[in-house]
């Protein structure tokens, strides 16, 4: 009975949304430019709605005139002078003025979106086939490197420096702002100012090879204090293994050469080729949004890398004994 009441209340409060559901369900969720959670995304969404509204208006006027001419005034003669003005006004002056207004709107918007003053935090993101290297600049000048996850303090203007060592990628968090290309040999910039705490999704928005669709990242917008605490934790070295299995996992990690590509700060692993794994267990996803993070998925990733992600730049280690895989997975999943 209470459930029924709940359902009725839900229906009442969201009737329009439910009626539009089949149309709009694709526009909700953590990766939607139509549900802005940042100032830049709000501006882009406003532009979208103005354009949509303008398009609908023009369609209505054109269809209205069409019906007027073919049905309502079908048998009456049209004055040549008036039709000439209609063509001149509706076909030349009106579109020129409207396009000029939209252009000016767009240009002003662009200037606002590219204003890099007043930022308080700087994050360098490098798009690499097919994951994201993320570096936070801390106040004391040190750098904190992590991967495939970006956390932001709510209400602060954050500057992103975007680059790529291989091919062109594009950095896009639809809920927070527009997208910007990452171009080899160049640094591009963007600003984001999140306004709503929450978890969002980012993606690569420029086709970059076979695993392009598996090149995603999680974005968490947090309260300022929680963010500072999180960054502090990410800056710390890795937690030492907590028990014998994890200890065996660290040994296997070092013995099998994982450290040639990966860093686990606080151990001998200092590789720079792949993602920094110092706090891999604390991340929301594994393999750039491919899997969730737990001991089981770590083990699958290490053993079947190439099956989970086509052409991945990490060899699969399925030939290792199962207990070693499990121990490594255990160790990595506990790196919080």
């Amino acid at each position, binding site marked *: 009975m209470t459930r029924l009441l709940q359902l009725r209340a839900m229906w009442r409060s969201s009737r329009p949304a439910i009626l539009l559901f089949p149309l709009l369900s694709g526009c909700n969720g953590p990766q939607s430019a139509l549900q802005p959670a940042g100032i830049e995304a709000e501006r882009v969404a406003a532009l979208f709605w103005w354009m949509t509204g303008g398009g609908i208006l023009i369609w209505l006027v054109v269809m209205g005139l069409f019906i007027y001419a073919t049905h309502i005034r079908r048998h009456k003669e049209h004055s040549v002078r008036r039709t000439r003005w209609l063509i001149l006004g509706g076909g*030349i002056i009106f579109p020129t003025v409207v396009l000029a207004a939209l252009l000016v709107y767009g*240009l002003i918007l662009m200037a606002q979106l590219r*204003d890099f003053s007043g930022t308080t935090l700087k994050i360098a993101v490098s798009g690499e086939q097919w994951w994201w290297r993320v570096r936070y600049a801390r106040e004391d000048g040190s750098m904190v490197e992590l991967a495939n996850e970006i956390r932001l303090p709510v209400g602060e203007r954050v500057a992103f420096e975007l680059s790529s060592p291989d091919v062109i990628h594009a950095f896009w968090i639809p809920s927070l702002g527009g997208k910007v290309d990452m171009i080899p040999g160049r640094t591009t910039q963007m600003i984001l100012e999140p306004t709503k705490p929450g978890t969002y999704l980012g993606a690569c928005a420029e086709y970059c090879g076979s695993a392009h669709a598996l090149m995603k990242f999680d974005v968490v917008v947090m309260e300022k204090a929680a963010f500072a605490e999180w960054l502090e934790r990410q800056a710390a070295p890795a937690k030492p293994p907590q028990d014998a299995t994890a200890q065996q996992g660290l040994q296997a990690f070092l013995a099998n050469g994982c450290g040639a590509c990966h860093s686990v700060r606080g151990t001998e692993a200092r590789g720079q080729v792949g993602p920094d794994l110092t706090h891999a267990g604390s991340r929301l996803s594994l393999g750039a949004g491919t899997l969730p993070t737990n001991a089981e998925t770590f083990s699958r990733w290490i053993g079947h890398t190439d099956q989970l992600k086509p052409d991945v730049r990490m060899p699969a280690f399925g030939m290792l004994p199962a207990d070693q895989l499990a121990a490594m997975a255990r160790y990595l999943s506990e790196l919080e």
Partner: protein
Amino acid sequence: MTKPHEHDDRAPAARWHSLWLLTVGPTIWALHFLIAYCTAAVWCAKVVGRDGSLDGLRSIIGILTLVALAGIVLTGWFGYRQHSFGDDSSTHSEASSGDRHRFLGFSTLLLCGLSFVATAYVALSVVFIGTCQ
């Protein structure tokens, strides 16, 4: 059968068949775009740097734009004169050389209108964007 136009008895001058005037407006538009784009690129890459201001560039592009618009207006005026060839009631849709001449003039005028608006739109970008960012 179309009735031969009254002006057809006049010997059509060679330039009546020329399409060149038609291309002048859009060519000025394209050149204006190209020069403005390259100047801005060099300005931002070599002169003021990526955080630099567009102030000095604005006057350069302003002058370039005025020259381009003047060229387009002049061409449009030539087109208009060509369109007005003959008396008031002259058509431009019959199959005669006089009509073709007028038709090409009218098309020149319209293309110049388009090029004028487009060139002005290109110039608007440096009015509203202040820096190389």
